């Protein structure tokens, strides 16, 4: 695999350049071993189309989403204002995020605290690149494969982005299969609302098992996701059913990067 080229915003501005877009990596994409691969897939796509992008690097901090959804508005606003101070300091106008939770928070909850940016999710960016012809899908790595797409709540219902990831998947010449509960009726993977960070309450099933069962019902080759937390939950769910050899859980960005052998 080729080297990835990533520059920080401070480095870029120091050499008198400005980025087209800031890539907001997110905590999961920075620290979680599985999610780091998604981050790199996004970077490979950006490198491939020669997009001039920058990251905040060590100046990035948690968006505050899990704190806000847990009811800790103080901690959320502290995080948000720290990030907004950094972003505004660098004069950032446009942001692409690798995570629907960061996407939602930056897009919808930062404006009230003084952070106004054009924020898009990485699946939207990939779709734009495909539409503009800057990116095309070569090779048939996924040709004829059955791919079932799981809607992340914070991309789907929360922000009504249902089509971008699907249109990207359809470019792969794959068979896009839908679960009964999809789009606005999509079932959560079980991670949202800070559930990722705690044990579930008493019940008779884990949410990710319920969702993985539904996704596996059509025996797909790939469960496509667009959120690092969904990725974790669905991967665990697939393992629960001992199907990890038949069904891979991959991010939409990884599908494109793998198909193009980036």
């Amino acid at each position: 695999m080729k080297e990835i080229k990533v520059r920080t915003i401070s480095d870029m501005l120091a050499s008198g350049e400005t980025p087209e877009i800031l890539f907001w990596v997110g905590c999961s994409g920075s620290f979680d071993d599985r999610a780091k691969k998604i981050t790199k897939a996004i970077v490979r796509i950006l490198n491939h189309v020669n997009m001039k992008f920058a990251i905040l690097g060590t100046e990035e901090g948690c968006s505050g989403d899990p704190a806000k959804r847990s009811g800790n508005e103080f901690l959320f606003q502290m995080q948000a204002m720290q990030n907004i101070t950094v972003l505004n300091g660098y004069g950032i106008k446009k942001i692409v995020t690798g995570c629907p939770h960061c996407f939602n928070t930056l897009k919808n909850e930062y404006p009230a605290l003084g952070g106004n940016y054009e924020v898009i999710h990485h699946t939207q960016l990939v779709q734009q690149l495909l539409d503009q012809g800057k990116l095309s899908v070569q090779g048939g790595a996924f040709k004829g494969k059955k791919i079932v797409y799981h809607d992340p709540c914070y991309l789907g219902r929360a922000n009504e982005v249902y089509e971008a990831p699907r249109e990207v998947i359809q470019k792969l010449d794959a068979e896009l299969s839908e679960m009964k509960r999809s789009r606005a009726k999509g079932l959560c993977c079980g991670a949202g609302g800070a559930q990722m960070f705690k044990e579930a309450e008493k019940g008779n099933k884990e949410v990710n098992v319920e969702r993985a069962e539904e996704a596996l019902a059509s025996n797909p080759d790939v469960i496509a996701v667009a959120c690092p937390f969904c990725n974790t939950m669905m991967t665990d769910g697939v393992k629960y059913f001992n199907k990890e050899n038949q069904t891979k859980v991959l991010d939409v960005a990884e599908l494109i990067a793998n198909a193009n052998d980036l």
Partner: protein
Amino acid sequence: MISAIVFLLLLAASVWLFSKNVHKIRRNILLGKALDRSDNPALRWKTMLLVAIGQGKMFTRPLSAAMHILVYVGFVLINIEVLEMLVDGAFNTHRAFSVLGGFYNFLIGFFEILALGVFIGVVVFWLRRNVVKVKRFLNAELNGWPRFDANAILITEMVLMSALMLMNGADQNLQARGNEHYVQAGSFPVSSFFAPMMSGLSDGTLIFIERFCWWLHIIGIFAFLNYLPYSKHLHILLAFPNTYYSNLKAKGEINTLDSVTDVVAPNFDPAYQAKTDPNNPQRFGVKDVLDLNWKNLLDAYTCTECGRCTSACPQNITGKKLSPRKIMMDTRDRLEEVGKNMDKNKGVFVEDGKSLLGDYINSEEIWACNTCNACVQECPVNIDPLAIIIEMRRYLVMEQSQSPAELNGMFANIENNSAPWQFSPADRANWIQD
């Protein structure tokens, strides 16, 4: 003459009682905190038109949507006939609108078909609850009064529609016999099927049946009107304002607490001007109904307990205690309790040592939520149970410091490392080299 007086007294009493109860509900809703939903009236009217009048969100479940349309259209349009009954009752006339001639005949025939539609719809609804036992009608929060309420509504509607049909059946027999009070009017595409079965009855019996059903129908309507304020059926009125005042923002956005911004922002901007009144500090989050805003309370009164929210909730599906419908039902029950407390105490709420969180909703329910917005998406009248859940988490975290231990760990990590896990912020960009 006497019947007209009796009728007018009943009418006046029912309107008076209804407006008194509506006034109380309005007062209870306005006990909620301020919230500005006056922006963008054009989009608000459009939302109401699509969601409430057009029932746009019902159709994700086609069978119940189709039956509901029958009952809804029937109920709205048959009220035109009730208008005639009001005139007949007040002026002791019979079928006062028959002067409309052919158009009247068409209307009466049309209403009969609608009434049949309502009857079928209501029977299907009753079967779904009591025979088919659709899962969302079996949850524990419906035990007792809510289940009785639901069946009472359905049976009342069956009785009202049967009375209308039976009245027409007797009426057309009397018309055929040339009884001078029973003018030749109307067409009876439905009741004519069973009218011949009444042909052997005497004039007196037929008049008794016709009058009895007429009074049953109109008194039934007066009673039903006054039952609404005590029932989940109030949605037939509140669905309209509730959808008008919908949240128009992205579902993913959770409101910003200005009271918190006032504390946090000066650390970043010394020139920051406070948005809330420091002399009137408010509780962070929600402990009791009076901490909620008026839209949360309107939501609670609008809920008709259909349970679509709960049937879409990932946590409820997997057997957890959380049920978004129960959150709304509890909110309404507690608000009613607060309202009755005020009625007893000259309009002032006297502390009763109870609260919504604790006595009605417990923290296990609140902490189970995925904030996935499935309940918000599902609600056919745009109720937002998630808003209430988030506010209660805020109270538990910021006022009580009662969050689950793992979440406290996550908070500490964000505070110290700027990530929800224990990683050093200095290592944030290490993935590039990995």
